[in-house]
Structures are given as C-alpha cells and as structure tokens.
C-alpha cells in the first residue's frame, strides 16, 4: 500500500516493511540531486528524526523519518549516481527501507487521494 507525506515522500508499506522515496513533487522542488548521505543499515530512528540528507545543486535538505523503525536496506546505487533520485519515476526514486517498530503510525500518513488533494491545494 502506498502512502505519502506532506513533505513529498512516498512510503510503500508491506506488512512491517516500508520503502521510502521522493515523489515527483519533491524532485521538482529540489532540482538535480548531487549527493545523498545515507544512514547505515541497523540504525534505529523514531518518526520525525533525520533519516538521510540530500544535496541538490542549490540546497541541502533533510529527509525525516515518516515512520519509526530500523533501517534494513539503503539504495546503494545512490552513492555513485545520486541523480537517480531526480531522474527516475516515483517508485524507482527510493532511498531506504525500514523495518517498522510501530506500524500503527501509518495511520498518520496520507493515502493517494489525500496526497493529491494536498498537492492541489498548494
């Protein structure tokens, strides 16, 4: 099931696993990505804590954890090709995967319709 945040991350949730990436809106917002500072697998994060840092040609932005959990995988290709994040479509522009510690937090994310409504308001 796909969820979204108001800061333009998508979160694909499957059971206790979640894959997190940037939406097209985030890609347009940021410009070309030049570097991604990724956490190490095994790192525990709480919701709203910094998960990764993304540098584009004009800005450094923090990626905050939309859900609490443990980092289980990172998108290794971003180390050499960070531009993947802005060149690929939503599903391929992923950053990392979490093993969720509190799946009920998913209720606080937006579903597709709510996210689209949010974008339309802006």
């Amino acid at each position, binding site marked *: 099931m796909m969820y979204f945040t108001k800061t333009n991350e998508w979160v694909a949730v499957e059971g206790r696993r979640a894959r997190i990436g940037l939406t097209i809106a985030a890609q347009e917002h940021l410009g070309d990505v030049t570097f991604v500072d990724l956490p190490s697998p095994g790192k525990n994060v709480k919701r709203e804590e910094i998960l990764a840092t993304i540098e584009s040609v004009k800005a450094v*932005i923090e990626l905050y954890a939309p859900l609490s959990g443990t980092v289980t995988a990172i998108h290794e290709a971003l180390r050499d090709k960070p531009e993947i994040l802005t060149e690929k479509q939503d599903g391929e522009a992923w950053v990392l995967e979490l093993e969720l510690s509190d799946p009920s937090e998913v209720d606080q994310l937006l579903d597709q319709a709510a996210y689209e409504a949010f974008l339309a308001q802006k």
Partner: protein
Amino acid sequence: MAFDEAMVKDVARGGSPIFRLYSWDPFTLSLGRFQKAREDLDTWGVQEMNMPLVRRMTGGGALYHGEDFTYSLACTQEDLGNLTVKESFRLLCSFLVDTWKDLGWEAGFARDIDAGAPDLGVKTPVCFAGREELDVLVRTGSSQSWKKLGGNAQKRLRHQGRELIFQHGSVPIRNDWKRLNACLQPSARPVGEPSADLVSLGWTNPRSTVEDRFRHHFLRNLDIQAVNWEPEGSFLSDVRHLASIKYLNGSWTLDGLEPRE
C-alpha cells in the same frame, strides 16, 4: 559558521528572520557540507598558505573568502510563503541581480540567459567554477561574455517543529585564483578564471555602496522592513558552544561529521 547556525536556532525558537552581511579576517577557505576535503584539498598547500578552513552547513564547492561580501539569512519557510527550493532561491537572489543592474551591469539568472549551456548543473569542487540555472551572471566588459558573479546555496531543515530556511551567499570583490589553487589538488582546480569579481567589472566604489544597495533591494524584493540587531549574551553563548563542539573541530571541518548530541 557557528554564528550562522546560531541564527538558525534563534529563528527556530521563534525569533525574527535574521539577515547577516559579513566579511572574513583572516581570509578563509570554506568547504561545502559534503565536500570531500581529503580528496579536493592539497593539505601541504593549505599549510603553506596558512589558510584557515571551515565547513559550511550549505552544500556546493569550495569558496575562497578573500575580499568579498558574504551574506547569510535564516528564516522560516512560512516567512517566504512556503515556496519551493527553486522559487525561494530565485526570490532570495533577486537582490543581487538588482544590485548589479544598479551598478550599471547587465545581470540575470543563468536559466534566463544561458539555459542551453552544456555545463549547466555540472558539480565542481570549486563553487565559482560551476554554473547552474539559478546562478547570477553578469556580462563582463572585455569579452562581453556572461560570467557567474558570486555563489549561493540553501539549507532546509526542521528544528523544534519549525520548517526553516538558511541561505548563504558570497560575492568576490577580487578573486585570488592563485591562492585558492595552491590549496587544491590539481584535479580540483578550475580551468582558467571561470567567474567574475567586482574589481574586474570595474567597480571602484567603497564597500558601503554595495552594502547599501544590497540592503535596499533585499528589503524591497521581499517587501519587508528591517531593524539593526545586536546579538545578546545567550545568542553569543550559543555561538561559542557551537564553535567549540562543532565548527572548531577537525571531525566537522575535514570529515563533515556532526557532533554527537
């Protein structure tokens, strides 16, 4: 750099936006947030030049702050109307374009002048060697070609529940490529003199004329008013604390490692 981060923390605590215009003594080399110092710097050259090093919280490449105007701004995203990075960047840099026009130079954003340039957006180890679509360009006298004048970079962060923007910029009065290159590995050195400076454009006025124009256009373009601000004791304590735990440490300056809380 500690002063700049203290500005962000002050705004996060509910303070008003802060705009700071400053210069460097001694002249200093600043590195981008994720720049690989150990790959790009010639450590012998840095020592020989007795060059102080700092690392910015903003991204991009190395900047030599000799004779220059450096500015920083801390505000909330809401203060700028919740604009995207690109939108806010254009708004915040527009005071530079207007200042250069005031001084009689043709100026504009690269995307409006040079959108088809093949090197637009190419990452370079030196800030002034690269060019991207929202860099400010001026037409230079002798060759009539467009050159970048100064560099700007933004950081966005969330602190104490507030969405914040921090922006850095630097405009060289006089580039010193020789001194900069002496601190860099050959592979990191720019080819030729890729960007302009105020002296090469024929600027001979006192520093205060540019500062006055910056202030005028910055306030007008953002449609805001400003008051002079003197940092108080608690702010200065924050600066000292940040300097001691982060900005004066090699783990941040050379390796970009944030201090452990």
